[in-house]
């Protein structure tokens, strides 16, 4: 997906903290994903306002790292294929 695309979590899915597993989870009809901390952070930035480029820039600044875009895209494209993340303009 292009850097200008704006990812958001689909209405049918819900991101929340699970106090039992001490992990964030993404819940959706008949399924769920238990997220690792990085995945949770990426999804937490998918607010329907930030573009993909802005999300990557935020994370790279936070960690003083570069080249995070492929990791972010792998996670979001995987969830988009299941209809759990939607890309808007």
């Amino acid at each position, binding site marked *: 997906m292009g850097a200008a695309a704006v990812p958001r979590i689909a*209405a*049918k899915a*819900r991101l*929340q903290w*699970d106090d*039992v*597993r001490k992990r964030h*989870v993404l*819940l*959706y*009809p*008949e*399924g*769920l994903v238990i997220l690792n901390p990085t995945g949770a952070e990426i999804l937490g930035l998918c607010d329907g306002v930030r573009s993909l480029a802005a999300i990557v820039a935020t994370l790279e600044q936070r960690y003083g790292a570069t080249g995070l875009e492929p990791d972010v895209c792998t996670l979001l494209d995987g969830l988009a*294929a*299941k*209809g759990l993340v939607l890309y808007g303009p």
Partner: protein
Amino acid sequence: MDPKPLWLLAELTYKCPLQCPYCSNPLDFAGGRFKQELKTEEWCRVFREAKALGVLQLGLSGGEPTLRADLEELVRTAHGLGLYTSLITSAYRLTKDRLTALQQAGLDHVQISIQGADAELSDEIAGTKSYRDKIAAYHYTRELGFPLTVNVVLHRRNLHQVEALIRLAESLGAERIELANTQFYGWAFHNRETLMPTKAQLEAAWAVVQRERQRLGSRLEIVWVLPDYHEQFPKPCMGGWGRSYMTVTPAGEVWPCHAAGRITTLRFDNVRERSLEWIWQESDAFTRFRGDSWMPEPCRSCPRKEVDFGGCRCQAFLVAGDAGVTDPVCSLSPRRHLIDATIAEVERAAAAEVTPEEWTYRAAPASRALATKE
């Protein structure tokens, strides 16, 4: 680490206006064992205990869960706990007002069954005129913005409609259609010879599913629940016994799956007497087949035991008379001939164009009659 449950199926009542002959409820659903339904506050306690144990997904099912007048309150409690709630309903007499109230209570997802692609067949299989209510409810569900799953149990009498069923789900704007080939438990086991499809029927339907998946891509998810009698290996039933799933029955018994109550050699505990945590961790029903130390050969030395967990304990009990043996649908099981004989009989009868026997509809009088016979 101990497994933590993720899924809870709350069977709120076994009352149901539909009479589907493949119902997964127990044959003796009308008997005393299930009569004293849990009260509102008892269910709410179950939900709290489930959440504390690790449950994240809650299915509100039955019977027909909308017959419970306190459904909104149950949804509100579950939602407040952070459970993702799914209503699993026949949609009989389900109004837009009720769905709106359930949405306001926090319901996340609606699954509505249908028995066939047209009113005539759907109503015949359901044993109750319900097709019109279902179609109306599908539209209300979408109008309110719920994610919608269309659920169809497939068998000999409706497998030819798979394409029409997918097209129907597509036209309704559903997220998913579950094409669930009949699993032979409960009423379906009782009606097995009538419901079981031929190999040719299954192959034709599967070809349609593959083609339609290609055409629809991510627009509509098509779930195909395998007809396990016709497979080489057993299903990984419930993702393994006592690993992630539990069912609470209308009167509070807790089962590792919704068919397990039929296994007469297990002891089942009740949320009225024990905490859900104790039942999950300590009860006979949940510990007997957890892990792999219970496994006999050929499972014990089989690399697939990590994949299918020895298959289904209920099927082993129903078909082979022993819940502790390899699932007889496994091609490596010494009891596979029991499954093959059933399939061969169906093929023979179909080839000779013998009309299958009438099925027994799932209804209270039949339930009571069958319970006395057993």
